């Protein structure tokens, strides 16, 4: 029966311990991917996958990625809300794998809001 064994988990603990030591006390940014049925149909799972890849790639455990329900703006899905400590939340619309990577790199890492992708600008 295929399963995750205790040995697998021990290995995972050892390999990630060093990276986890860099974790800050609390998330400094939260990115919420809206995973209603409309968002999922429009590609929100791909967006989330790409986003989580960026968080892992850039070793940014201080960035929290969460799922949430539809915001009611189904026509602009996939919608993603970005909150950075000390700033107002920004909702990005019609995200895809490439756009969310751009949002991550420019907004999260460099602090620049990508106005062309903001909902209701």
């Amino acid at each position, binding site marked *: *029966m295929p*399963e995750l064994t205790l040995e*697998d*988990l021990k290995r995972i603990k050892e390999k990630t311990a060093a990276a986890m030591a860099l974790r800050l006390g609390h998330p400094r940014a939260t990115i919420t991917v809206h*995973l209603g049925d409309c968002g999922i149909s429009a590609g929100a*799972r791909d967006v989330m996958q790409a986003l989580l890849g960026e968080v892992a790639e850039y070793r940014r*455990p201080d960035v929290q990625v969460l*799922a949430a329900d539809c915001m009611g703006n189904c026509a602009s899905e996939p919608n993603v809300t970005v909150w950075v400590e000390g700033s107002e939340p920004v909702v990005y619309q019609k995200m895809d794998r490439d756009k969310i990577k751009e949002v991550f790199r420019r907004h999260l890492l460099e602090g620049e809001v990508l106005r062309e992708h903001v909902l209701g600008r």
Partner: protein
Amino acid sequence: MRELSLHLLDIAENGIRAGADRVAIRVEESSAGDRLTLCVEDNGSGLPEDKIARIDDPFVTTRTTRRVGLGLSLLAAASRRCEGDIRVESIRGKGTRITAAFRRSHIDRAPLGDVVATMEALVLGNPHIDFCYTHRVDGEEFVMDTHDLKKELGGLSLSDPLVWRRIAEAMRRALGALASGSAPSLPLEDADA
């Protein structure tokens, strides 16, 4: 939806919005019976009876952000299109179990798709919820229970992408072996070794 795993994500998210703190997802494939069955069970607030009776109606929803509820009606349509059916069992205050069956070889059946990506979105997007994923193919079974994983990981967070990446790699290997019918000898090999 283009993959059945997207339906799993959608139905599981519904359970979470209904206040569940534990969601069990089961996928069962039977070659002999030519069936594929998806089951999502949560311990949320349950569905009102009038909503259950009208699951085929996309204009019925419990949400307040909009007036249509496409998810469950899409799953019902997908299963019925493939000589299957959907069953919704719900007890108010206790939870909901949704079971959708398909003829596995039906030409219109969408592929199961990337269930690891679905579990990734669920587990990482909802760090305070426990998920149990069970996948059975002709009697062989894979189980991933985040409640057990969290205990074993001790101080590490399962929802951290760095930790999850390794869990996902192991899950992909195990599910690949399950699909090919060659249950691997374990422990699973380490991709980085």
